[in-house]
Each structure stands twice: as structure tokens, then as C-alpha cells.
């Protein structure tokens, strides 16, 4: 695309854009697909010793091998990932990404590959329970742009008289550390990550669970411009059926019960309407 500059002068703006989009499709066809990840979100994706690791990373590599796709990972902060996918800066989003109605209007989800519930984390020495931790002037930590933030705003902050304030963080590790200092009294996070913090020896405990059965999935740009949604769906089913998925998950979260694939597919997601891409026998009627 750098060559574009040379053609800028003689060509009009309109023809430049036409040439530009022509270039774009040819380069995309040869280049590997760019997989956007948030590499500070263990156990889904993180960097250790300069290498990408995590469930989403290993599973994405297995799916790519299954589908015969070339991929490369690109790390971005979480709040930038969905805009990047919507703007087609990346082709696939692979992280612990929760399926929500709002997101499904801007990006297309694959079939769900995981299911989480949210937990209320409090400091180890706290005597709060799930009710007292989320009320009465409490400051509660969430990751900015996360599904937990959306859920709290929809169900607690904006729709009830419960007096709480949300503190939004760049990532959950900072939120949990801030709770240890005492700036916030609790953190709402998905159960998979919460278990990870407890296993790592952080001074936190679960005060209670918010049972929301949120599906997690991969995502591609809206309307699947690269036509890879079907391949990804088949890839997810293939690594689940072969047992590879279970091995990957157990490597990062030992002893966890792996939810069945495909899990609960919410009605509001248009790519879950029958027939689902690549898996025509599935989908909501």
C-alpha cells in the first residue's frame, strides 16, 4: 500500500480510493490473516518470555491448522480491539471475548466456545458478602469496555437505587492490585480469570457469583468480508471433537470442566440464525 503515494498526485481522490481498495484485496489474499489479541488477559492471551501464550492463542493456532489458514497475531489494548475489527484493521478477534447484543451489531461472532459467569472478588481479609460488597457507596472495579461493565451499568447502576460507583481500568490485573491497596472495595470479573488470580496467590477471594451464562466466541468483521466465518466455525467444532480443545484448556486452567460446544447461542446474534456459517445443521429457528 505504500506504493499508493506515487499514484496520489496524478489521480483524483476518487480513483485513488478505487485503486486503494483494489490493492487492499490483493494484498489481503496473499498475506496471513491478522488475529487481534489482548495480550494482557491471562489465561486467554498473554506474553511470556516474548512469546504469545494462552488458551485463545493455542486454540487459534490449532483452528488455523485445521482450516489451512496462515495467521499472525497482533496485540492491542482491549478497548481498541473491537474498533480495529470493525475498521478491518484486523481480520479475526481471538481473546476471552463475551458475546453481547451491542457487539453483535458491529462484528460477527463464531459459535460460542466457552461460557463464563461473573464473580465478585473481594480482598481475602474482607468480611463483605456478595450483597454488602456491591452496595452502599461501594467503588467497584471493572475493565473499561468489558461485558462486566455493561452488565453492571444495565442491571445495577442505571436501573436500581443501589448506590455504587464503577471504577474502570485498562486491565483486570491493575484493578485487582488497586483493590489490594484499598482504593476500591470489590472487582467484578469473569470466573475463569478470578480463578487464575486466586491460583497465582493474590490476596483475594470470591464473595459470590453472578450467574449470567455469558457465551464467549471468536469474532470477524461485520458481514464476514474475508469469508472465513464458516472455516472458523468448522475449526472450533473439529478441535472440540478431537479433544485438542480440552487439552489446551486444561493446560491453562487445570481441572476445569470444559463447557460443551456449541453452547448456548443467544437469539440476538444474527450469525446464530439457522443455518450457521459452515455448520448448516445448527442455529436458532
Amino acid at each position, binding site marked *: 500500500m505504500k506504493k499508493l503515494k506515487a499514484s496520489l498526485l496524478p489521480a483524483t481522490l476518487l480513483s485513488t480510493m478505487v485503486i486503494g481498495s483494489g490493492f487492499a484485496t490483493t494484498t489481503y489474499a496473499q498475506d496471513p490473516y491478522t488475529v487481534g489479541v489482548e495480550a494482557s488477559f491471562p489465561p486467554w492471551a498473554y506474553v511470556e518470555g516474548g512469546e504469545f*501464550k494462552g488458551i485463545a492463542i493455542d486454540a487459534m493456532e490449532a483452528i488455523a491448522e485445521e482450516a489451512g489458514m496462515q495467521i499472525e497475531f497482533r*496485540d492491542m489494548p482491549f478497548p481498541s480491539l473491537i474498533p480495529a475489527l470493525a475498521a478491518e*484493521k484486523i481480520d479475526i478477534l481471538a481473546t476471552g471475548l463475551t458475546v453481547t447484543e451491542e457487539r453483535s451489531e458491529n462484528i460477527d461472532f463464531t459459535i460460542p466456545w466457552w461460557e463464563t459467569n461473573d464473580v465478585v472478588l473481594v480482598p481475602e481479609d474482607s468480611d463483605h458478602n456478595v450483597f454488602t460488597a456491591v452496595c452502599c457507596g461501594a467503588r467497584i472495579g471493572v475493565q473499561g469496555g468489558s461485558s462486566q461493565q455493561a452488565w453492571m451499568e444495565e442491571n445495577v447502576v442505571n436501573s436500581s437505587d443501589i448506590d455504587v460507583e464503577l471504577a474502570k481500568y485498562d486491565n483486570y490485573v491493575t484493578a485487582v492490585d488497586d483493590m489490594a491497596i484499598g482504593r476500591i472495595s470489590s472487582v467484578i470479573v469473569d470466573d475463569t480469570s478470578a480463578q487464575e488470580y486466586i491460583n497465582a496467590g493474590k490476596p483475594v477471594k470470591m464473595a459470590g457469583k453472578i450467574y449470567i451464562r455469558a457465551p464467549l466466541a471468536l469474532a470477524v468483521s461485520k458481514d464476514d468480508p474475508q469469508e472465513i466465518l464458516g472455516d472458523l466455525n468448522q475449526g472450533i467444532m473439529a478441535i472440540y471433537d478431537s479433544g485438542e480443545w480440552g487439552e489446551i484448556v486444561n493446560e491453562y486452567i487445570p481441572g476445569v470442566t470444559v463447557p460443551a460446544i456449541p453452547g448456548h447461542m443467544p437469539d440476538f446474534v444474527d450469525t446464530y440464525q439457522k443455518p450457521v456459517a459452515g455448520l448448516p445443521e445448527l442455529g436458532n429457528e
Partner: protein
Amino acid sequence: MDIYDVLLRDFPFLLKGLGVAIVLLAALLSIGFVLGMAICLTQLYGPKSRFVQWPLVIYERIFRGVPIIIMLFIFFYGISGVVDISAFGAAILAMGLRSGAYQSQIFRSAFQSVPAGQMMAARAMGMSKMSAIRNIIFPQAARHAIGPWTNEFSSEIKETSLAYVIGVVELTRQAHYIITSTQGNILTVFAVVALLYFILNRTGNSLLYAFERKLAVPGFEK
């Protein structure tokens, strides 16, 4: 593995992040220098027509008046419909154009601090405008510009750390990797990162101060 072992093991990656920050810094300062100098010279000695001057003023006001993080988002997401720009390219462009706006004003104040009578005297002695700028005004203005330019250098080093919001993996992002993969140690890791930024800043400033001393006219500006 405690945090010091991890830091030791991952130190090459921190240095790699520092390298990315340095390349970004060098590129944005170069763009800013060329652009800033051109704008300054046009504002002071170029045609006085408003068709030339107004766009320069508008450009300078906009780039000095909008937060760099917004500019990064605009350049990365906003212009992607026209040109497919990489995150690194977008960061260089957004920060370089912004630095140009700042540097133009640094240079303008330096040029204007040279008494106007010198230009008149040079012209009266038959020197062309170009020659007077090059041989009389510029050598004096350059001496005045180094001080404030050191300031611009220091603030731009620190701003390179913002490029991570659009996915440039520089020093700050590398530090995030260590923090999240070890589940904490924010104080230790950022202390090391702060030290690295400090060393880079200090080295750059020392070189610029040495340059300033070298250019100083003995017995006059000391």
C-alpha cells in the same frame, strides 16, 4: 520464578521495546523538524498572503490543541478508509505532525529573538534575503532554539509511550506483558521502565546541552 528472574529473562524484550520507542522518537522528531522549520520560515519570511498564512495557522492551532491520544485514534482508524496505514506508521504521522506544530513555534521564537535590525543591516549591505537568513539570522537563532528544543525532545520521549493504545508494542506495552504474565509486580516493573526512560532522556539532554555549549560564542552567551 520470582520477579527479578523474570525481569532478567525478559530484559531483552524491554530493550526491544525501548528500541521501538527510540525509532518512533527519531522519526517523529525528524518529521517535526523539517515541517516545523518550513512552517517557521514561511510564517516569518514567506509570502504574507492569507492563502499561505491562514492554513499554517489553522494547522498549528489544531495540532497543538488536540490531545495526542485522540490524534492517534484519528490517524489509525479515521484515515484507514483512504489509505491502509499500519499502527506504527499512524503513530509516526500523528506524533510527527504534532511535533511539527510545536517545533514551528520553538523556531519562530528563536528567529524572532534575533534583533530585526540585523536583517535590515544585511539587506542594506547588499545580501539577498536567503543569504541573510542563512548566514546572519540562522546561526544566532539555532543557539536560541536548542534550549526549548531540548524540552520538546523530552516531552516527545514520554509521549511515545501512548502509541501502545493503537497497538505499537513499545516499552510500556512490553512492561504490561511482564505485569500481566506474572500477575502483578506493578511497582517493580514500572520502576525499571521508569529508569530506562530516564536514562534515555538524560542521555539525549546531555548530548543536546553539550551541543549548546559547543555552539556558544565564547565570552558572549555564557
